[in-house]
């Protein structure tokens, strides 16, 4: 006979496995600091690319100004400003990345734990049924 409760449990587990579970199980395999470090490394590369894209767009916008004032411009000051913007951008995006990575890691660990507990409950349920069936076959 169909066990409705077990079907419900299995549906919830399968749904988690196929939806958020794939990503979250990967995340939960890391140690927290390792995961955050990896995300920061990824963020460093992406933010650097983003920075150059932003600077490129800004340069296109101010192309006339840059061409005209190239000779009289204080290049060191310009480079300092560009570096400051880069560091500032990196700090802001790193902070956002840390915040999001911590939140994601916490949620992943919590959900994976719940998933493992669900699997345990299901296993126990199966064991109980197996014992029941064995008792029915051999009542002594």
């Amino acid at each position, binding site marked *: 006979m169909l066990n409705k409760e077990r079907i419900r449990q299995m549906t919830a587990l399968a749904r988690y496995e196929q939806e958020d579970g794939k990503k979250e199980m990967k995340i939960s395999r890391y140690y927290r600091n390792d995961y955050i470090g990896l995300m920061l490394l990824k963020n460093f590369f*992406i*933010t650097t*690319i*983003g920075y150059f*894209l*932003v600077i*490129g*767009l*800004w340069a*296109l*916008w101010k*192309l*006339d100004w840059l061409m005209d004032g190239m000779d009289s411009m204080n290049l060191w000051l310009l480079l300092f400003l560009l570096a400051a913007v880069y560091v500032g951008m990196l700090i802001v995006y790193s902070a*956002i990345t840390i915040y*999001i990575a911590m939140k994601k890691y916490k949620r992943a660990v919590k959900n994976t734990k719940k998933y493992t507990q669900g699997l345990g409950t299901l296993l126990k349920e199966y064991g109980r049924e197996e014992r029941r069936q064995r008792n029915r076959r051999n009542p002594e």
Partner: protein
Amino acid sequence: MTMFLELKEKLKAIYAEYGTYILPAAKFLLALAVFLSINHTLDYVPALGSIFVVLILLILSLICAIIPLNGTVFFAMVLILLQCTGVHILAAAFGAVLFLTLWVLYLRFASGEALALVLTPLAFALNIPAAVPIAFGLVGGPISALSMACGLIVYYFMNLIQKRIAVLAAGEDLNMLDLVTALAEGIFQNEELLVAVICCTVTLLVVYLIRSLEADYAWEVSVVAGGIAYLVIQLAGALFLEVPVSVPVLVIGTVGACLICYVLQLFVFGGDYSRSKMFRFQDDEYYYYVKAVPKMAVANPDRTIKNISEEELKEEVPEETEVLKNYEISRKEPEEQTVEIPRDIIQARGESPEQDMEPAFDRIVEEVSAEDAAEKIETEPEMDLEMNEDYFESVDFEEKLTDTLKNL
């Protein structure tokens, strides 16, 4: 109001039953609308307007129906860039850099906010731009403003290509530097875009803040306030920054957006403030001030109405009599099994046989049967003894003995 609530209930029931098909169908229609809107705005590559490409767009929309909404965003951006190549390759390259920058700066953190990004250009194309900030103020949060700003940048980029760059690129003496500067200025020095971003952000925040209040009718008020905020900021932008605005289109579009969002808030919230109640209670640590607003609800209108005509009534009568007959039969069955009560017993009890016998009958049967049973229990052993004595007296034992001897 009742009509909307009934519709809400019906839609809920339909979604519960066919949700598996409705969601992909909605995503398909959204993707198709976005792709067709892009093709309509930027129609610069003739090959992309052919029937064959429309078929490809249909297939793309079908793919978008089963993948996450970010897939629609990606394909839409690719389509925009492809159309931009028809204007000038530099326009497409600028567009690619712009979209990549948007992704790197913001969209990589907000993959769940793709709907605001997709709907914003669509709402602007339909002349109901206020609908998006008000709707996302109702259902989303302040973070939706960033997605909306990205959507606005994409929309104004398409507008820029259509209105300025296409004209510039079609000119005979095309200067690359002018083209790039025009593209960059069209995004970074565009007052219209700036006003739109400020307007949408402020509208969204106004709606979000008001609908978060616990005041009565906060959701309805937030929709109206959002509409007014949008109108005021747009008109202020038109006055102070000389942003070209068509006032009748703006007013009609905002009113339409408010109506759409009013219906939306009925679907999303639907609280009945006339029956709201305030409670105040406390425990060891806190005082609680609770406001309970009941949900507006209507009974399920799915009812079957049966017309009962006179003919049907006539037909029903025999059924009733049949039931009554059955009832009588079931009542008579025990009567047949019991003993018949002599009329004299009834008369002896002072009840005439012509009276209505029904109630007396049951009582008397019970009493008589009880009396008989008691009498039976009491008299049975005595009767046995009497019978034995009579039997012994009547038998001639001597004669019987003689007969037996003769037989022997």
